[in-house]
Structure formats: C-alpha cells, structure tokens
C-alpha cells in the first residue's frame, strides 16, 4: 500500500484513493489512515516516534475500521484544543506580590480532529494526558486533564512546539496578600485557537483580576496580542456564560 508521511497539519483536505494510506506524526501520536475497498482504517499508537520504525512497534497499537462507501472521500486533519479544562502545575510555584501584574505563558497539548468528507470520525490528543480532579473538595469540582508547565514569564524564552498551544495568562493581583500559584486551571474549552505565521499555535488571552478580598477573581477572555497577524484556526467549543466570569480563587488556582 502506497504511503504518504505528514509531519504538520495540511492546509486543505486531502484526497486519498483506494489502496493508499497517510501517516501522520503529531507529538507522541503516530496515526495511519488507510483507504480500503468499502472501508477506512485508522491505526494509532502513543510513543516517542522512532525514525523508520513501524507504527505500533513501540506502544500499543489500536486499529479501528469505518464502513464508508465513498470512493472519492477526502480526509482532513485539523488541530483543536482539549475538551476539558487543563490543570497546569508549574515546575516551581510562582508567587505574585500584592498590587502587581504578570503574564504567565502556559503550554497545553493540542488535539486532532480527523474527518472524512466533513464527518468527524476520530478525536485524538497528541499525548496521553492524566486525569485530575480540580475543586474545593472531593464533592465539588470538575474532572480535568493534568500537565506540567515551565510557566515562563518571558515570551522570548518560549520554546516553539507545534504540538502545543501557548496560552498567555495575565494575572493582576489587586489584593493585599501575595498569591502563590501551584496549580493553574486553564479553562481551555472556552478559548479560541490561533496560528502564527511560523506555525506555532496560540490561544485567546486569559485575563484574571484578583479582587481586593483575594477570594473572588474576575475572568476575561480576550483575543491574543497581535491578533491581526494570526490566523484563527478554531473557535471555542463552549460558549462563555456570565457565571463563568466571576469565580472564586480556589476554582482557578490552588
């Protein structure tokens, strides 16, 4: 079977005739999409891809079949953000002093939408993420994904990674007490995804204002800086509700 290899998202949908397959590397994900008679197959595994290795040689291989009888079917691969909030744990906690403002850059892994003839058939993340619980206690909260982050404060030090989206979080502490960020709940489903000219993905900017009492926080989602030079790739998957805007501090940080 003739195979093509892709290492970045194609700009447009691709035609894949019968007997051909497409191999796509995306972070830890190795995905092979093949077109057979009366069916399409996906085979994927999660591992650090080794050059020249067969897919599934390292890591468990998962194969799925889709009965689609459309000889001229086109496939499209599109990036998007996660379907749940992501709790990022800085490698070292950051303390924000009273009456100060800073911007923290957090990277969150991207997801991939695989469509055949505009029908969504598979959603895959670029890495396997752990689940975590984020909330006041074990009774109230939400199920999130968990990652770690360097939480850089200097945009020039950001490492370009085509499998992650950078979220700038502008935090303004208007209270009288310092705030230590040990975990940050990034409400990813409410953010839009953009792409810079060099291929780096970025999201809407999250602006958090910590009120005087340092218990309540006001959230605002703004377009990214230099939005004019960015290409919008995907809208937010969830609409922003009024109740979302005001949250207590323990629902954002911990």
């Amino acid at each position: 079977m003739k195979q093509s290899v892709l290492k970045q998202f194609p700009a447009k949908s691709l035609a894949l005739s019968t007997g051909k397959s497409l191999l796509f590397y995306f972070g830890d994900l190795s995905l092979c999409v093949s077109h057979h008679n009366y069916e399409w197959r996906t085979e994927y595994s999660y591992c650090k891809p080794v050059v020249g290795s067969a897919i599934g040689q390292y890591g468990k291989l998962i194969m799925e079949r889709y009965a689609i009888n459309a000889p001229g079917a086109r496939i499209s691969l599109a990036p998007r953000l996660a379907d749940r909030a992501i709790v990022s744990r800085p490698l070292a906690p950051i303390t924000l002093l009273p009456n100060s403002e800073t911007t923290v850059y957090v990277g969150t892994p991207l997801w991939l939408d695989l469509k055949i003839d505009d029908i969504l058939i598979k959603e895959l993340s670029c890495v396997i993420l752990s689940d975590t619980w984020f909330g006041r206690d074990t009774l109230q909260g939400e199920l999130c994904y968990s990652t770690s982050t360097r939480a850089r404060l200097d945009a020039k030090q950001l490492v370009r990674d085509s499998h992650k989206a950078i979220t700038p979080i502008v935090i303004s502490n208007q209270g009288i007490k310092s705030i230590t960020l040990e975990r940050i709940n990034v409400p990813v489903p409410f953010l839009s995804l953009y792409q810079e000219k060099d291929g780096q993905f970025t999201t809407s900017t999250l602006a958090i204002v910590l009120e005087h009492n340092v218990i309540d926080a006001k959230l605002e989602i703004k377009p990214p800086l230099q939005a004019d030079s960015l290409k919008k790739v995907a809208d937010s998957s969830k609409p922003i509700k009024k109740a979302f805007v005001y949250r207590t501090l323990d629902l954002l940080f911990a």
Partner: protein
Amino acid sequence: MNSQLNSPTALPQALEDLLSGLLDHAWLANAWRAFIILLAGWFIAKLITKLTSRFTAEILSKHHQILIKRSLFWLIFSLFLISALHQMGFDLGVLVGAAGIVSVAIGFASQTSASNLISGLFVLSERCFEVGDIIRVGSSTGEVLSIDLLSVKLRTYDNLFVRIPNETIIKSEVINLTKFPIRRFDLHFGIAYKTDIDQARRVLLQVAEENPLCLDDPLPLILLQGFNSSSVDVQFSVWSTRQNYIALKNSIQEDVKRAFDREGIEFPFPHITFYAGSTFYTGADSAPLPIKHVGDSAKA
C-alpha cells in the same frame, strides 16, 4: 301479613313494587348524576395528572413522577366518588364510621406494611440515593432498579434481584457508592522488613503516575499502618472517577505486583525462625539444631 305473602298475587306485586321503585324517576336521575360525576371525575383526574407530569418532567425523576401521578389521580377521583355517593343518597357519616372501624382493623393487621409505606416516603424525601445508583445495604450491593412504596429493588453485580423493605433501609446503614464523582481505592499489603521504605514509596508513586486511570489530584497516599509479625503494613490509596473505579482496582494491583517484582521488593509471607541450642535462646549463643543423616529406616 303472612297470608298476604302466601297469596298467588303477592310475589308479582312485590316484584312490581320493586321495579317501580327502581324506575322511580328521582332515583334514576340521581344515579345518572352520580355516573356523570364519576365520569367527569375520571377525565378531570386524568387531565390534571397529565399536566402535572408534563410540568414536573424536568424537575423530578421518572419514579417520582409516576408516584405523584398515581397519588394525585386517586385523590381527585376519590373526591368525585364521595360526591357521587352523596348524590345517590348514601349517608356518608355511616360510611365514615364504618371506615374508621375498618381502618383500625386494617391498621393492626398491616403494621409492617404501613411502616414500610411511611419509611418509603422518608426514603424518597431524603434522596440519599436514586434509581441507577449503586448502594450497599447490609451484605447486599447492587444497582437501584426502583424505589417503591414498600421496598427498594436492587440488581446485584451477579444479576440477582434483591428486595429490601423500606423499613430496613431507614433503620440500617446505607452506603451509596456512586453519590460522588470521584472515589478512593485503598490497597493494603505488607512489605518485608528488609525492604527500603523510601524505595517502596518511590516505586508506588511511579506506579500511580503511570496508571492512566489514577487521578493526579487528589494525590496518591502512602501510609505505614504498623509493624506486623512478618511484614511492615502499608496502605496505598489512589483516586479515580467512580466510573473507572473497578478498572483502577484491577489494574493498580497488577501494576504494584509487577513493579515490586521488577524492583526486587518482597511481599513477605508468614515465617517463624526457630532457635535452639544447649541453653534457652540468648541470641548469639544459640546454634541451630544439627541435622545428620544416620541411615535408612529398617524395612519391616
């Protein structure tokens, strides 16, 4: 009087009197009115219950809806029934008196059922579990199929049907295994005394980190429970979503076993060291019993 009844014309006359009584216009009119009242009552009760279920569809569970529908229907219909009986000319005071006596008799006879009925109302109002939850009552664990007036029905994991009277539910401890979104699994085991505890802790945390079903937060917990005769007892607690609890319970135990085998950490088994020597055990002075082969046993 007897002679009148014995006369050949007495029976037809009595029949004629009865028939004329039955066909009395006033009585017939009352009967028709009562019938119309009952019919109207039935339709009105049906209409009201339908409207009620439509309004409560989003607020209440299906079970509560059925309960309210039935109760409301019979309440409304019984009002129309009383009105119909009154129309027919029945003295309701007599009925009430008779009903009082009957209810006392029924009450004595159905104490348990009444207790279950009232307990059922309390169970419903408390809402400590709902249809679909997994609960444990005594030695029975299962999925709640229905919460009825007299009992709660469960389906156990091995597909058995269990009926638990509501009175038992009210009186005993009920554990709802699916009330909260996340759940902790506690694994108790022992490690050998010679094991490096820090190494064991590192290995266990690594196992938790690599298991995708294990939540990163709340953090896994490792507690030393005590020093047993053959082992150091450890509790390893990890969290998962309630849907993944069984899968985590299976996988984490396998992962711990494999990781311990790989790292050379021993799961101890009970064993006794026996010291014997010329004196009672005094530590270094004792020597083990010498065992020497002296010969084959003589054949019989």
